[in-house]
C-alpha cells in the first residue's frame, strides 16, 4: 500500500493514520503531507475526534506516584530555561532560544545536557555559519546531532552524544528540500566523529530543508530512499 496510490483516498489514508495501521514509512509520508495538505489534516482530525471513544475500552491502570514527580521536574526544568538563555554569548542564539514556537517542537525530559552541549558547540563556531540544523528524535525527546553549513555547498555533521548502533545496522543521513520528490542520501554516519559532507551534486542548501538520520540495514538503504525508522530529524534554519 502506497499512500500515493489512487485507490487510497485521502479519507481512508487519514482513517488508517488514526487507527495506527500505516507502516512507518506511510505514516511518515502522511505526517509530512499533513503540513501542506489542509484537507488531509482535516480528515485526520475528523477520525481522531470520531474514534476517540474507543479509548473507553481500555481498563484504567494505577499510576505510580513517581510519574507525576518526573513530569513536574521536567516542566520545572523546561520553564527555567528561558532565564538561563540570557547568558548565551551569541545574540541570535538568545532570540532563537526564547522562541517558544521553536522549542515546542522538542519535548520532554532529559535533554538539558545535550542541549547545553549543542549551545556550546554552536557558540564556539566561526561566525560564518549560514545554516544550522538540530536533529532531534522524532518524539522530540532529545537533540542528537547538529548540522552546520558555513556555505550552501558543504556541511558538517556532529553527534551530541554516543549512540549504540545495533549489530547489522547502520545510520544513514538524508536530506530533502521542500520541492524535491524524495530524500537524497548523504551517506552513512558514525557517531563520535564530525563528518564533512560536500553538497556539490545537490542544489544549494535552503531554509527549512529537511535532514534526517534513519536506521538502515548494514551498508545502508539498498533502494536509495529511507527504509528504516527515523532516529533523528530536523530542518535547516538560517543561523546568521
Amino acid at each position, binding site marked *: 500500500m502506497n499512500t500515493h496510490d489512487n485507490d487510497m483516498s485521502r479519507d481512508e489514508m487519514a482513517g488508517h493514520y488514526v487507527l495506527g*495501521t500505516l507502516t512507518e514509512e506511510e505514516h511518515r509520508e502522511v505526517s509530512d503531507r499533513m503540513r501542506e495538505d489542509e484537507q488531509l489534516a482535516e480528515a485526520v482530525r475528523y477520525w481522531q475526534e*470520531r474514534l*476517540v471513544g474507543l479509548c473507553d475500552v*481500555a481498563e484504567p*491502570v494505577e499510576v505510580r506516584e513517581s510519574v*507525576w514527580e518526573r513530569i513536574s521536574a521536567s516542566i520545572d526544568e*523546561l520553564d527555567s530555561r528561558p532565564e538561563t538563555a540570557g547568558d548565551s554569548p551569541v545574540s541570535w542564539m538568545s532570540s532563537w532560544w526564547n522562541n517558544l514556537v521553536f522549542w*515546542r517542537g522538542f519535548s520532554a525530559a532529559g535533554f538539558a545536557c545535550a542541549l547545553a552541549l549543542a549551545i556550546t558547540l554552536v557558540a564556539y563556531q566561526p561566525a560564518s555559519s549560514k545554516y544550522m540544523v538540530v536533529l532531534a528524535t522524532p518524539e*522530540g525527546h532529545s537533540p542528537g546531532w547538529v548540522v552546520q553549513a558555513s556555505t550552501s555547498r558543504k556541511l558538517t555533521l556532529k553527534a551530541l552524544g554516543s549512540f549504540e548502533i545495533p549489530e547489522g545496522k547502520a545510520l544513514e543521513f538524508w536530506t530533502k528540500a521542500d520541492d524535491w520528490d524524495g530524500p537524497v542520501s548523504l551517506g552513512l554516519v558514525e557517531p563520535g566523529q564530525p563528518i564533512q559532507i560536500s553538497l556539490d551534486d545537490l542544489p544549494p542548501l535552503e531554509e527549512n530543508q529537511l535532514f534526517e538520520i534513519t536506521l538502515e540495514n548494514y551498508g545502508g538503504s539498498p533502494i536509495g530512499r529511507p527504509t528504516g525508522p527515523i532516529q533523528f530529524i530536523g530542518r535547516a534554519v538560517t543561523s546568521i
Partner: protein
Amino acid sequence: MGSRDLTSPEVVAPDERGQSESGHSGTFDYDGCLRACVDGDKSALKALYVRESQQLLGVVSRIVRDRARAEDILHDAFVRIWQRASTFDASRGGGRGWVYTIARNLALDTIRSSGKQVSTEDRPEEVGDIDAAADPGNSQRWIEKVGSSHWGGNSERLQECLERLEPIPRACIFHAYVNGYSQSEIGDLIGAPVGTVKSWIKRSLVALRGCMG
C-alpha cells in the same frame, strides 16, 4: 488542587457544543485546563493528570505492552501537553480528545520505531482477556464501553455505528485502534490473509464515515 475551578459546569467551554451530559468527564473543563497550562498554571496540568492519568496509562499500556515504557510515554505526553497547550484549538475538537491523541500518537510512534511488539503468546493475561472480548462472536463486552465517558465533539455515535459493522471487520477496528496491532498482526490473530484484513478495514472506514457523518 488548582488555583482555578476546573470542575465547575458553568466554565465548560462552548465548544463542548453544550453537551455536558453525565459521564465521568462531563463536568471537567478540559479546554479551560489547557488554556490555564498556556498561562503557566501547573496546578491545571496536575488537575488534568489526576483526572486522566490512569485511563491514559490504560490506553498506552495496551499499545506498548510494557509498564515502564507506558509510564515513560505518560510522562512525555504530559510534558508535551504542557508545551503544546497553546497549539490546542477548541474550534477543531475537544480538549480531552486532543490529550488522548497526543498520548496515543506517542505510543504508536514507540511501537513503530521499535519494530514492535511482543508476540501474541507473550501478551499479558489481561490483554488476552480483552482480546477474547473482541472475539467477533462476542463483541458485546467491549462495545458497550465505547463512548461511555464524555468526549465532547462528534464521538457520540461511535458505539451505534460500530454495532452496525459486521463482527469480524468490527474486531479489526478494535485490534488496530485499541491494541495498536498492524494489519498483518490482526490477520495472524483472527486467521485471515492480510489482504482480507485490509479490505475489511477499508470497508469499515467507509461505513463508519457514512454512519457518523
